[in-house]
């Protein structure tokens, strides 16, 4: 694309975002009415690579197969069913208005844009809200066993940032059931021969031929071989970059290497500083921990968050002299209900996380570290009875007990006539990344023929994602958006044969992968991959975490340079290039996490405002709320790779254009 040079720097021309004409509510219909299609006989001649089998990847691969395209589908685990979408607990939003509580497509659109602190692309979000209802229909037809009422109709619950109940759920395992639904459709296409599935494969590079993405180099994780695959288009559905922080709610194999490979090939990376810190995770308990466990946001429907009002009580709790259930009602500070009366415990995640940090910073935190707050079910159990509460959250209570040895459904104390149950202890943790590869309205990156869907792209959640919207976006992209928009690109590719994998571009890409591998094996230093990754995570959390300042970000960038040096000169990878070698695969990923860490810090340093998950301490209101700067930062920050990892990336802006929604200060108080 031809960038425009302005006094403010390089800008993406409005036309290249490909936002269709017309009022926001008609854009998607207009697009579909006028896009180019590929006829069934020609679809058979076209091949699409889909990397990833989470909600976005599996739904895209199966739907493209149903349409008649040939699909090559890759997953890093031993089965497509294990992609990390499976761990999503709470639910999926849709604007069905089955509860008759005033919901609509517009309201879901509005809540999502507001929840994202006015940094999402308006037209994309409207489309997301528009197709949300189709997703529920699709999933029910697949036999996804959503929760139902006794009358046989679907049940709903509430999630943060909304005043309606629009979240559909399957116990605390909604992601699992939706993913198994997409996996079942995928299996049908595999059986029919339209999708070829490659398990235990990891993408290492995207291959560009004549300026278009034409294939990938992927490593077979069992044999250790690099293999070449060619296609007419490549779709990345490889998730987010949360594991840059080492400790997160992401799975062990979640990584950003595919996205970083695309970035190194010239795809813009958008808004990397927008990282979601989820307020309700089980607190860190030691230095041996490998990951953090989320406690679903749905718990905030009935759970109340509090810390003691009194510092002395907090100290006693920290020392273990008293338990949470020993603190009577009048000595508890339900700080979310106090600060945000209109939304209470169901404020969005960024707001809830910051409020928890504020209390802990002031010394009111609990746990032996002082870094936790209580999530309490006493009121709900006293009101509804333990059976009803267990029916709703039983599996989460069990999960909590397995990890901490405390059962939140057990009576802790009786003070006067009031029963106090054991509260959970929770603390914020890295959970999701709103930033990602820049995509246009068609979900195409800045590289021709390369698409990014699901958490891998940046477009729909702005600076903060609302609960139950990740599942919605993954399935929207895969079932209902990409299968349309990719045809607009493929329609003029029907006479182009699928490229040969013997082209010099494939030779070169594979050669580079091998060279990088040999480099890693040759260092023979003294640091294990995990020890460097833990250090990286520590720096990211400390200096690029929940609260950032100019100084902290500059410190981070300096420290990350040292980390890179340690990695390049003193890493130790055992074993060889042949066969299964997990340490070697982790080393590849760590190299990209370090690049990602720098990218997050550069973006956070550039954005001199606070919005959503990005909180710069210099920019806050007197009440400690995020203070946006719409005059100077009402844009998507896209980062352009400058040829090597040691040079700072160049900033390119996509100015945001809001037509339907008035941009205003986010308010959850009244």
């Amino acid at each position: 694309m031809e960038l425009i040079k302005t006094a403010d720097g390089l800008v993406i021309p409005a036309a290249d975002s490909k936002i269709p004409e017309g009022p926001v509510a008609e854009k998607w219909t207009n697009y579909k009415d006028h896009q180019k299609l590929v006829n069934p006989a020609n679809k058979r001649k076209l091949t699409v690579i889909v990397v990833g089998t989470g909600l976005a990847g599996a739904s895209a691969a199966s739907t493209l197969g149903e349409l008649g395209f040939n699909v090559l589908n890759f997953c890093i685990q031993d089965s497509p069913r294990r992609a990390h979408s499976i761990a999503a607990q709470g639910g999926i939003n849709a604007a069905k208005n089955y509860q008759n509580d005033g919901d609509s497509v517009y309201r879901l659109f509005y809540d999502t844009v507001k929840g994202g602190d006015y940094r999402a692309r308006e037209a994309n979000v409207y489309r997301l809200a528009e197709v949300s209802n189709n997703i529920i229909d699709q999933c029910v037809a697949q036999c996804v066993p959503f929760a139902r009422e006794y009358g046989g109709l679907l049940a709903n619950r509430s999630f943060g940032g909304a005043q309606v109940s629009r979240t559909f759920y399957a116990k605390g395992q909604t992601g699992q059931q939706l993913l198994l639904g997409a996996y079942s459709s995928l299996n049908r296409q595999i059986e029919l021969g339209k999708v070829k599935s490659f398990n235990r494969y990891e993408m290492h590079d995207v291959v560009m031929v004549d300026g278009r993405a034409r294939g990938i180099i992927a490593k077979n994780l069992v044999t250790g071989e690099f293999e070449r695959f060619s296609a007419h288009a490549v779709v990345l559905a490889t998730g987010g970059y949360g594991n840059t922080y080492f400790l997160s709610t992401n799975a062990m194999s979640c990584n950003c290497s595919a996205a970083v490979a695309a970035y190194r090939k010239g795809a813009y990376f958008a808004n990397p500083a927008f990282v979601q810190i989820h307020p309700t995770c089980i607190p860190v308990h030691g230095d041996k921990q490998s990951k953090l466990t989320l406690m679903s946001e749905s718990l905030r429907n009935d759970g109340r968050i509090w810390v003691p009002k009194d510092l002395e009580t907090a100290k006693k709790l920290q020392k273990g002299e008293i338990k949470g259930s020993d603190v009577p009602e009048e000595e508890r500070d339900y700080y979310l209900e106090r600060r945000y009366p209109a939304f209470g415990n169901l404020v969005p995640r960024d707001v809830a996380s910051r409020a928890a940090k504020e209390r802990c910073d002031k010394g009111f935190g609990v746990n032996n570290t002082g870094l936790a707050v209580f999530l309490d079910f006493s009121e709900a159990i006293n009101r509804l009875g333990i059976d009803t509460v267990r029916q709703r959250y039983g599996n989460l209570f069990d999960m909590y007990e397995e990890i901490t040895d405390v059962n939140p459904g057990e009576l802790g104390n009786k003070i006067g006539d009031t029963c106090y149950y054991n509260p959970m202890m929770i603390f914020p943790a890295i959970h999701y990344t709103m930033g990602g590869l820049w995509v246009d309205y068609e979900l195409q990156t800045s590289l021709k023929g390369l698409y990014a869907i699901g958490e891998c792209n940046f477009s729909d959640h702005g600076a903060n994602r609302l609960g139950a919207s990740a599942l919605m976006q993954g399935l929207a992209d895969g079932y209902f958006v990409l299968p349309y928009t990719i045809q607009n690109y493929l329609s003029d590719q029907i006479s182009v044969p699928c490229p040969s994998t013997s082209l010099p571009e494939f030779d070169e890409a594979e050669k580079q992968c091998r060279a990088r591998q040999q480099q890693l094996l040759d260092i023979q230093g003294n640091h294990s991959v995990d020890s460097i990754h833990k250090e990286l995570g520590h720096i990211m959390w400390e200096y690029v975490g929940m609260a950032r300042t100019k100084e902290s970000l500059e410190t981070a960038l300096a420290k990350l340079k040292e980390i890179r040096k340690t990695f390049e000169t003193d890493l130790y990878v055992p074993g060889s290039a042949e066969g299964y070698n997990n340490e070697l695969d982790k080393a590849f990923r760590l190299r990209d996490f370090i690049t990602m860490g720098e990218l997050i810090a550069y973006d956070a340093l550039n954005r001199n405002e606070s919005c959503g998950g990005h909180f710069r301490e210099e920019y806050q209101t007197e009440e400690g709320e995020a203070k946006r700067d719409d005059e100077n930062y009402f844009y998507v920050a896209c980062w352009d790779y400058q040829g090597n990892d040691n040079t700072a990336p160049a900033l390119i802006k996509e100015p945001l254009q809001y037509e339907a929604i008035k941009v205003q200060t986010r308010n959850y108080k009244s």
Partner: protein
Amino acid sequence: MSKMTVTLRVWRQAGPKAQGEFKNYTVETDTDTSFLETLDILNEQLVEKKEEPIAFDSDCREGICGMCSLYINGHPHGPATGATTCQLYMRRFKDGETITVEPWRSAAFPVIKDLIVDRNAFDKIQQAGGYVSFNCGGAQDANDLPISKVAADMAMDSATCIGCGACVAACKNGSAMLFVSAKVSQFALLPQGQVERARRARKMVAKMDELGFGNCTNTGACSAECPKNISLSNIARLNREFIAAKCAE
């Protein structure tokens, strides 16, 4: 939290065709650390000593993806009930204990390396019929067809299966009946699954037999060891579905 030292007696096998053997490792850990994190600690020590770390599968580490396996002290997913290996904490073991760790042992799940096995056979069974044949986009409104809460809840209980393979590992015959029956049940209990009901039961059972899983003799070990407590009644339902399908042929 209290510190503890355990001896891990771990199955090491260089590759699918290699001869395997048990090796003993002593590792210091604590009661609040998970079993897999203890294996991480051990691997970190092995890397420090420039030895090859133990290969094992795990991903979500919150009990839902089904990637982790391990036969620990004679039980798939270890001594805890209703939990996967990744949800197992060291407080379940005694200080000084020797813990035996093996891969799933079943003809249908060949060892890839050390504790990692190939469970591709499970995907193949699902591909044989674990779906409703319809294309995206044609579905009616989700509330047009009421479904009884009881049926939906029962379907959910069956659909909770995480496909880890513990049932096969626990079964003396290496049967996959619990896994297959959970999927067949989910569809059989819901109206959308009715059209292909007979075909699905026939095809999935045929595929299971073809892939070398053993027969079911109703010992119930699968259900007893299942980390998701999938009920044995699913197998009864599968038998009924299969016989009905065969009779209708």
